[in-house]
């Protein structure tokens, strides 16, 4: 227990989390501090390239295994399933219209890359090294939830041909999915010899880039906080309880398929996180009538900060208790 608390504290005083807090502070205080959009996108590209590549190199050593296939399947099933729960909760806890509720629910089936990245760093710090292939699981979980969201909104069939093809592009060929899976494959193909070339870039710089990126996430989250009033207490509560619910589901799944504690924690982090890039874009295309300020506020201003500060250490501690290791 003491160890759990001390790890949670270590998380809260890690530079990455502190830079996020600095961003929140600067945003709330209306400082003119800002990270240029192009730089923020460049940092995001870097993080996805690096995390994908490192995962791929790790898998190139372990090879494809049944565990990998099971983990991938588990992730996909979770991504499809979680929006159902989220939708039910949103309808019960808030007064959102059904379409906005469905669109928001989709975000919770999908994942947040940065939450995963911060979580992986935390796990490593706690001596829990998750498998390289969890990156592939991450990429595979990004989009199934979108389909569930559309079904919930009664829109899976109703849309025109053009919208469907736009949607396929957004879903299957979404930039972050392509870059994550692509870098993963490149890591697998180029293995240790590739890692020898890219190590200073993808490994050494990683924490620093993450810190700078989280500074910007804080600024953006702060800008979104103003939308929280519109959500009401019910909406805010949803943003805080849905992550542990998703994570619990992930824990059960992980236990079922015999994952290690570290992999279970990683899966919990994925399940507990909510998308703020891929899913919003898809929802603008398929459900333009859903209110974007609802799902962006939920995902960026409520769920992301919760996971980054409390959720990650919580999931790690529970995974260790439940699965051992």
């Amino acid at each position, binding site marked *: 227990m003491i160890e759990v608390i001390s790890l949670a504290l270590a998380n809260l005083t890690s530079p990455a989390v502190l830079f996020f807090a600095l961003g929140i502070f600067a945003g709330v205080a209306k400082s003119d501090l800002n*990270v240029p959009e192009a730089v923020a996108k460049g940092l995001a590209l870097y993080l996805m390239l690096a995390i994908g590549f490192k995962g791929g190199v790790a898998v190139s050593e372990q090879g494809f295994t049944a565990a990998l296939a099971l983990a991938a399947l588990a992730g996909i099933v979770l991504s499809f399933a979680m929006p159902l729960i989220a939708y039910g909760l949103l309808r019960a806890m808030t007064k959102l219209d059904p379409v906005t509720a469905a669109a928001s629910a989709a975000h919770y089936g999908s994942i947040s890359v940065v939450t995963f990245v911060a979580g992986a760093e935390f796990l490593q710090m706690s001596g829990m090294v998750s498998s390289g292939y969890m990156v592939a699981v991450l990429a595979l979980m990004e989009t199934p939830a979108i389909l569930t969201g559309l079904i919930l909104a009664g829109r899976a069939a109703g849309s025109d041909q053009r919208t469907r093809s736009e949607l396929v592009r957004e879903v299957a060929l979404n930039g972050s999915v392509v870059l994550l899976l692509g870098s993963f494959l490149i890591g697998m193909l180029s293995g240790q010899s590739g890692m020898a070339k890219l190590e200073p870039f993808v490994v050494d710089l990683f924490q620093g880039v993450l810190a700078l990126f989280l500074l910007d996430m804080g600024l953006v989250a702060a800008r979104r906080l103003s939308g929280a009033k519109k959500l009401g207490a019910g909406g805010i509560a949803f943003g805080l309880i849905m992550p542990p619910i998703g994570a619990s589901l992930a824990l059960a799944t992980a236990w079922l398929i015999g994952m290690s504690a570290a992999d279970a924690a990683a899966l919990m982090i994925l399940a507990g996180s909510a998308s703020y890039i891929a899913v919003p874009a898809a929802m603008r295309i398929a459900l333009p009538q859903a209110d974007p300020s609802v799902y962006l506020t939920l995902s960026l201003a409520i769920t992301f900060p919760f996971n980054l500060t409390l959720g990650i250490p919580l999931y790690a501690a529970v995974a260790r208790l439940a699965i051992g290791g």
Partner: protein
Amino acid sequence: MTRPVRKKLIAIVETVHLRRLLDLLAECGVTGFTVVDAREGRGLEGDWHRGDFADATEKKLVHVITNAETAERVFAAAEPFFKRFPGIIYGHDVEVVRGERF
């Protein structure tokens, strides 16, 4: 000197729907356009800012110079478009040089 008069149209559209609008313009017979990034804005759906990650609500301005008939076709086709998707469109007369281009 009097110069040829053409229509200028400006549409403000979400980046995710830009291709769809450009295709609609091409179907109406528009042969030239220029797109500009918007930085932030406010409309019926509330505020948005570029750089909010989620480019979901980011917008573009599309400028078109075209002749009156084509403009009429664009207006007609744009009306249902902008009922469905966020954004606006408007137009006015302009004098041009090399009027045969448009």
